């Protein structure tokens, strides 16, 4: 199973015929979104560790919790495609269902150390799910590759 999992938070990819499904979970929406961000990067970056160098802040807002997942991942895709930004870790704070502030530690893409995976074109709304239990938040999203 591709992905990263510990007891309380993690992410994994799942099959979708022509695209890639991404699932992420955590104790809070912030944790689940941080995991989703790492999951997206895991699709784009096949190998090579990312150094926790520079600090970068992302502010993202959307109409609702589900649209926020798409907007957040689209923001990361944009940062990667225009600046080569890669994140080593995220802290994501979700203050109301449609807004987040994230701080990332990371660096810019270095082709001597990083091996790229599949190019992600966009993040879709198809079969998008945000599921909140008492003690866990789970998101599922399909990315177009």
């Amino acid at each position, binding site marked *: 199973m591709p992905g990263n999992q510990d007891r309380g938070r993690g992410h994994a990819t799942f099959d979708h015929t022509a695209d890639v499904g991404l699932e992420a979970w955590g104790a809070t929406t912030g944790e689940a979104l941080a995991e989703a961000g790492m999951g997206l990067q895991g699709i784009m970056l096949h190998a090579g560790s990312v150094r926790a160098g520079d600090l970068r802040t992302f502010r993202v807002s959307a109409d609702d919790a589900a649209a926020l997942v798409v907007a957040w991942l689209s923001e990361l895709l944009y940062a990667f*495609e225009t600046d080569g930004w890669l994140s080593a870790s995220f802290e994501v704070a979700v203050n109301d269902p449609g807004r987040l502030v994230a701080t990332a530690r990371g660096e810019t893409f270095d082709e001597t150390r990083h091996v790229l995976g599949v190019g992600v074109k966009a993040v879709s709304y198809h079969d998008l799910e945000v*599921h*909140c239990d008492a003690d866990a938040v789970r998101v599922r999203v399909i990315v177009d590759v």
Partner: protein
Amino acid sequence: MSASRRKKRSRGRGAGPPASGPDASHLERLDTYRWQIPTSYKTGMRVPGVIYSSETMLPTVLSDKPLEQLANVTFLPGIVGHALAMPDVHWGYGFPVGGVAATDVRDGVISPGGIGFDINCGVRLIRTNLTEAELRPRLDETLDALFRAVPAGMGTKGRIRLTRKNMDRVLRRGAAWAVDQGLGWPEDLEVAEERGTLAGADPNAVSARAKERGAGQLGTLGSGNHFLELQAVDEVFDAPAAAALGIEVPGTIVVFLHTGSRGCGHQICQDYLQTFAQAPASRSIHLPDRQLACAPLRSPEGQDYLAAMACGANFAWANRQAITHWTREALAGVFGRSSRALGMDVVYDVAHNIAKIEEHIVDGQPRRVCVHRKGATRAFPPGHPELPSKYQEVGQPVFIPGDMGRASYVAVGTAGAMEQSFGSTCHGAGRALSRSAARRQLRGVNMVERLGAMGVGVRARNARLLSEEAPDAYKNVADVTAVTHGAGISRNVARLRPVGVIKG
């Protein structure tokens, strides 16, 4: 589309699509190659869905989810005739890949999901005078030259960095801009849909982000299923048509190019999905999938999207035009002859992710409709006014990439396509395996060696991607084109066999 569906899955399970959607009992057989999903299948369907398939291919189609998606497409306001699934249909997001839907321009909608993120993803075919016998001894050298000339893969920067002003020119003028910059021949424009420039493009309708994402990517191939291939004409089925296209001699080498509008188009689609989600005129439309978000064609949002989509389409045509030029330069360098002497004429250039305003006969009456083609190719018949004079007699060339081991097809449009499918046919083989299933199945297989044993040379930026794109991951394109040919929505002209492949 509810954001909190009840369906629960166990943590981290890599399950495939649920087996929902129509099964064989919901389908009505219309004839040898067509099945229908009646409007009674689901409340809210405005027209039936029609699937092109064969008895042998149908079970594969039914095992995936595309038919549920096809039924969902028929919810779009203003849809006319039928929603159509081509024989290469597979599960996409919102629309199925391999879907066609026409909406009335007066009271219908436009749905960016019916075009796709990769606006004007398409195929260009360039012929040459080279034979396979001439190419084989210099194949490695040729592939190296092409791999250097055409940036491929994710994160690669193009050879051109567009200024803001030039980006707007590309968005307005498409391939014509590239030719003006010396990236090609004026006659290249004669043999592209819309002459490589879709009218109505307005760069003001395109976000700064989309322009920024595209600025460094003009003339790049991208990754995923995009490719640049050298192929040999393997068998000719229709000699007069093949002669009109300049590919009548078996063994002739042609260049097959498949790419689209890169980050620019992807961002345009993403931006307008969000715009439509917030527009009041769109909010009142009930749809079963959020990715189908749409706006009335006559609304300001709908008009803005059309203007932005035309920009994305133009970026893609400029992209394929720039790659054409560098491909000519690379082959000229290797073979020590000019690209003119090598006979490197563009045969044609087709879009397979696009919406077009066209006139079609619906219920016996001519109607202006917006034809959404998502993973489907326009296939206009002989005599259609949109076609260049050289193809007036044979019909519009159609290119159907298969996979990198077996074959691709060249076909032409037909009157049957105008009667049945809004002038549309298939666009490829269609995936049979998901990306991860392909990787699992081919674990430990050296794809470069395996393709080499099949007589296909490969240069790829990313070896892992090769197994995801392996021949095993795709349906057999021969089965797909047997259906489109048999149903009469396009006519097979020739089969091509891959000789060399450049992948991202």
